[in-house]
């Protein structure tokens, strides 16, 4: 019934990118996203796209998976493109009735769309190549300096990983309850929006009750195994930076420098459509 909801989009493979330290991957993705905002012309975007394609190629994640990440933002993408294209004032390129397309509008529309696409693709490489659990572990370690300020970083990371862990459980639970209520003649498919929302009550009430029950059981099981928060806790798989990570870091820095230098027009490359 709701089996086709896919959450957590990890792509199982053993590539160099998959094996990188999650902390480095998070940092790298962050750096990449920031650098995208330095880009001032199409050649800059070309460099970014080339580097990203290289990473995707090495990660062995099929390109259609990456494209899939675009689906949920399709609408926003089209909307921003059209808005920028049609509403920006400037030198008129093309006109039909009240609709005008300006040179500036076209430039801006292309820029924003490309930037959004590169942002989404870059972020999806991170989630495709990093298991949700490593991702939360990585976040925990990156945020760990904040624990000195009293932020409970371990607890936050633990909540994130438990939440991720229980998504499939709750999806299964929802499916089961829906089927049970269908068998009692519940109807989830007809009526207007308000009626449909009302008809979901027989599913939502047991779902919440069961979620609390599962949470309570889990808390008890964790306590029974002496879980007492992050203090003094060691890891089964400690995170260590290796040569691979160092090499990746070098490449990241090279990428950042390239983008920065091009944005200043200091590379022996032309600046196309500079803004």
């Amino acid at each position, binding site marked *: 019934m709701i089996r086709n909801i896919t959450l957590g989009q990890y792509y199982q493979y053993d590539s160099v990118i998959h094996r990188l330290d999650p902390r480095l991957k998070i940092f790298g993705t962050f750096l990449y996203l920031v650098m995208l905002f330095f880009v001032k012309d199409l050649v800059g975007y070309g460099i970014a796209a080339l580097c990203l394609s290289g990473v995707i190629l090495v990660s062995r994640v099929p390109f259609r998976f990456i494209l899939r990440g675009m689906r949920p933002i399709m609408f926003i993408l089209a909307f921003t493109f059209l808005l920028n294209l049609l509403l920006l004032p400037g030198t008129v390129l093309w006109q039909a009735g009240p609709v005008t397309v300006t040179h500036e509008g076209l430039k801006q529309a292309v820029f924003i769309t490309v930037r959004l696409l590169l942002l989404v693709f870059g972020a999806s490489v991170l989630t495709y190549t990093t298991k949700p659990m490593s991702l939360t572990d990585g976040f925990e370690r990156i945020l760990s300096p904040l624990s000195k300020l009293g932020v409970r970083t371990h607890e936050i990371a633990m909540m994130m990983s438990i939440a991720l862990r229980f998504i499939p459980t709750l999806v299964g639970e929802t499916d089961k309850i829906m*089927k049970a*209520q*269908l*068998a*009692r*003649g*519940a*109807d989830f498919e007809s009526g207007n929006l308000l009626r449909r929302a009302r008809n979901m009550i027989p599913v939502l009430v*047991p779902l919440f*009750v069961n979620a609390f029950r599962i949470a309570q059981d889990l808390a008890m099981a964790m306590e029974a195994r002496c879980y007492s928060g992050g203090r003094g806790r060691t890891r089964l798989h400690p995170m260590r930076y290796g040569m691979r990570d160092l090499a990746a870091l070098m490449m990241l820095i090279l990428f950042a420098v390239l983008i920065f230098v091009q944005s200043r027009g200091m590379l022996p490359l032309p600046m196309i459509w500079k803004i």
Partner: protein
Amino acid sequence: MSIELKNVTYRYNRNGAEDTPALKDVNLTVEPGQICGIVGHTGSGKTTLVQQLNGLLTPQEGTVTVDGEDFSSRDRRAELRRKVGLVFQYPEYQLFEETVAEDIAFGPRNMGLAEDEIRERSAEAARMTGLDLELLGDRSPFELSGGQKRKAAIAGVLAMRPAYLVLDEPAAGLDPEAHREMLDMLVRICSEWGCGIVLVSHNMDDVAAICHRVYVMEKGSIVMGGTPDQVFSRSGELREMGLGLPAAAELTVLLRKEGVLPDAPRIPLNAEEAAELIAARLRLKGQGEK
């Protein structure tokens, strides 16, 4: 008048051509007034089969018909589903209304019945399960004990007066008394209402005690079927599938192996029969010694 499954094959993953079907060429008939047991270990396809019986899943091959009609027509589907009451495992986790009475009335209300009809059916269903509606009707279902919740949930299905009732492990996790009450209730529903009942269970004693017919599932197929006597006499095959026998039958088989009961005419399925058999044997031996 029956539920009939003919050559039913079902796969969860339609795209994967290689994966093994969850149900493979299943044939099954559920007659009114009969209790039909389905046994098999975890993952043998029991739960998938149960969902075929009232159209929650529809087979890719083969047909499922209820009183001669299949689930293909959207308009008739709801009507047919009402004929086949389905009680999932741990049905108490599906209670949701503010009061027990309202929860039991959910099914009949969805059928669009009149208020007095709903009240009458709820009362009758509660009586059948042994739930005291006068006392508990206005309470929240979340305040009840585990056994009472189970009864309330089953009453919610019974209130729809299904012609067939399918239950997935209805006695799991109940204490011995509630367990026995549950079996008694199934027998009563069958005899008083003439309901056709399908009981899915791991408990061979339960199946032997109340079922008229038993089907054994393995890897999505029905590999054995017949009366409890017939099925449980094939103890060797059952053990190979990782399934057990009713305790009394197990005892007899072991005694036979020890050479104590060499000529047991039939495998006893409950303690009384086993006791009679052993007592007769002991008396015979006693006479021999005199």
